[in-house]
C-alpha cells in the first residue's frame, strides 16, 4: 500500500449525501479479477451518457477536477455494499482523500486499507470546503496526516481526528497482514484454548 503523508491537490465538490457504492462503481464492473483499471468506470451513470460520451455537467468531467485527488461530499459516503472495488475505482481515478461528515463503516475500513484517507468533519466545515472546491482554477487543499490538519486555500487550518492505528498504517504504507502475522503465537494460543471450550467450532 502506498503511504499517505501529505497531499496538496485539487478537491472536487460532490454535494450529495448517501453516495452509495453502486454509484461509485456499478455491479456490472465488478467482474474483474484485478484491483486496477476500475477508474474509467468510476461514477459511471453520473459521468457518462448511454452512448459513452461524457456528461459535461458532472464535476469530474470538468477542469481542473479531472485531476482531482480529493473529494468533498456529504453524509453517509460509501453506504451499501462491501465491494472494495469502490475505493479501488477512486484510487485508480486518482482520488487519495475523501472528506465528508460521516462514512459507512465498511467503506471507511476499505478506504484506509488502500491508502485512501477518509476524513470526517462536521457538516458546516464540509460546506465551507465545498465552497473552496467550487472555486476551481488553481485552488488547492492540503492534507497533512502527521499533524492531522486540512489547510484551506485561505491558509486556515482545520484539525481532524484519525484512529491511531490507522494513522500509523497509512503514514508508513503498512499492510495489515504482515503486522497481524507478528501476533501468530497469540492466535495459536487462542485456538488451543477455544478448541477445548468449543470443540464443535473446529470440527
Amino acid at each position: 500500500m502506498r503511504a499517505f503523508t501529505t497531499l496538496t491537490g485539487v478537491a472536487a465538490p460532490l454535494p450529495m449525501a448517501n453516495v452509495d457504492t453502486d454509484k461509485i462503481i456499478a455491479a456490472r464492473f465488478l467482474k474483474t479479477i484485478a484491483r486496477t483499471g476500475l477508474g474509467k468506470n468510476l461514477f459511471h451513470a453520473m459521468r457518462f451518457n448511454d452512448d459513452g460520451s461524457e456528461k459535461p455537467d458532472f464535476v469530474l468531467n470538468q477542469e481542473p477536477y479531472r485531476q482531482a485527488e480529493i473529494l468533498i461530499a456529504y453524509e453517509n459516503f460509501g453506504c451499501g455494499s462491501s465491494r472494495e472495488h469502490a475505493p479501488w475505482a477512486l484510487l485508480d481515478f486518482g482520488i487519495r482523500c475523501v472528506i465528508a461528515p460521516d462514512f459507512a463503516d465498511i467503506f471507511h475500513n476499505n478506504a484506509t486499507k488502500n491508502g485512501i484517507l477518509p476524513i470526517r468533519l462536521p457538516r458546516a466545515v464540509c460546506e465551507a470546503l465545498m465552497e473552496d472546491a467550487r472555486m476551481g482554477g488553481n485552488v488547492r487543499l492540503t492534507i497533512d496526516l502527521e499533524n492531522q490538519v486540512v489547510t484551506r486555500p485561505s491558509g486556515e487550518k482545520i484539525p481532524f481526528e484519525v484512529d491511531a492505528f490507522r494513522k500509523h498504517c497509512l503514514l508508513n504504507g503498512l499492510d495489515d497482514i504482515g503486522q497481524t502475522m507478528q501476533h501468530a503465537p497469540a492466535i495459536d494460543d487462542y485456538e488451543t484454548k477455544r478448541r477445548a471450550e468449543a470443540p464443535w467450532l473446529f470440527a
Partner: protein
Amino acid sequence: MAIQPRTLFDKIWDAHVVETLEDGTVLLYIDRHLVHEVTSPQAFDGLRAAGRRVRSLHGTIAVVDHNIATDASRRTGIEDPESRLQVETLERNVAEFNVPYIPLLDERQGIVHVIGPELGLSLPGMTIVCGDSHTSTHGAMGALAFGIGTSEVEHVLATQTVLQKPAKNMRVTVDGVLPAGCTAKDITLAIIGKVGTAGGTGHVIEYAGEAIRALDMAGRMTLCNMAIEAGARAGMVAPDEVTIAYVDGRPHAPKGEAWERATAWWRSLPSDTGAHFDREVVLRAEDITPQVTWGTSPEDVLPITGTVPDPANATDETRRAQLTRMVEYMGLTPGQKLTDLKVDVVFIGSCTNSRIEDIRAAAAIAKGRQVAAHVRALVVPGSGLVKKQAEAEGLDRVLLDAGFEWREAGCSMCLGMNPDKLTPGQRSASTSNRNFEGRQGPGGRTHLCSPAMAAAAAITGHLTDVREFLA
C-alpha cells in the same frame, strides 16, 4: 467483584478477542469465513504473491452466487467471458489453497447467505464474515456476522482474524403483534424508514421484543439482512428455542456431546438484564403496515397506502435536491398514489427473501391466479436445496401455472451483474434489499417489498396492498 451485565454482542465479542492492541483495536478471531467469486480473486492473488497459505480450512467455505446465470444455460457453461473467468478463478484458487467448495451444479449451491444457515455452517455464538455486506443476515442465528472488503478477506484467509474496534450497542425493540399481511420485510423496512440509512453507523443492532421473538428463522434472516441498510455493522437476534430447533440436525451442526455443550453456551448468550445499550429505538408492531420503497435509498419507504412525496416540502436544500433527483430517476409525479404505479418486472429472490418460507408466501398469493399480461415475474430460490424443497411441495407448479418463471439458485436480479437485469426505465417490485440507482441494471427502477407484496404486484400489474388478497 460484581459482573457487569453484558449484551449479546458483548458476549460474542469477548469470546473472540485474541489480543487487544495499544490503541484499543482488537484482533478478533473468526469462526466462519464464507467466500464467493466476486470479492475473493484479488485476495487469493495477495496470498500467492506473499507465499501465504489459508490458515483455517475447516473455517472456510466457498461458493459461487453473484455473477452466474439462473436459467438452464448454467448447465452448459457460463456464456459471459468475464463471469466465466471469475468463476474459473475461484475454482482454481480453492483447488490451489485446498478450500472447501460447493460447485455450481451441486444441489447445495446457492446464495452464500442462504446456504450458511441452511447447512448449519452458521451457528449461534459464532463470528462470521464474508466479502459481502449482507453477511449481517447470519446474525439471525444469534451470531456476530458482518461484511468485509477484499483486503480483509485476504487478512482472514491468512490469519483467521480481523482487526476491529468494538462497535456500539443499539437495541431495536418491536413490541406487540404484527398485523395480517405484514412480514419481517415490512418490519425491517419500517425500521430503516425510522432510523435512516446511517441510523446504525458504528453500531451493532440487536433486534428484540415480542414481534421479533414471534418470527421464524427465515423472518429473522430477512430482518438482519437489512441491518446494513440501516448503516449498522451487524444485526442480531438472541438465540432461543426457535434457533436451536432450526439448527438441530443440520449437516454441519454439532452432534452428541458437542451438541449439549454448544446449546448450553448458546442459551447463555442473550443480553443480561440491565445490559447497556448506547442507543434504543422502539416500534409498535401494530403500527407497521405493508411497506414499499418509492425512492432510490432504502430509507425512502412508505406504507403501500402512501403517495409520492413532494420535494418542495423538503426541509433543507440537500434533501430537496436528493428528492427531486429520486422523483425524476424513478419516473414519478409528486402526490401520485403508490398503488397506481405499473410494474414491468417482479423479482422474488435474493439473500433477503429467497427461503422456502418466502416461496410459500409468494405461492399462496399466486395460487389459482395469473400474472398480469405485461409483467415478467421471476422466482429465484436461494439455494438448490430450497428449490428441491419447493418442488417437493409442488410450489413450482403453482408458480409456473400462474405465469411466474421458476429459476435456478443465485443472486439473480438483486444486483445487475448477471444476465437477470432490468432494462433502462423498467419498473420492478422486488424482494431484494437495495433500490439504489442502477442496482438492478442501468436505468432500472426498483420498489422493495415483501414476497407476498411482490407476488400481488405480479398479479395485478401494479404495486398493490397485499391485504386486499387476504379478504
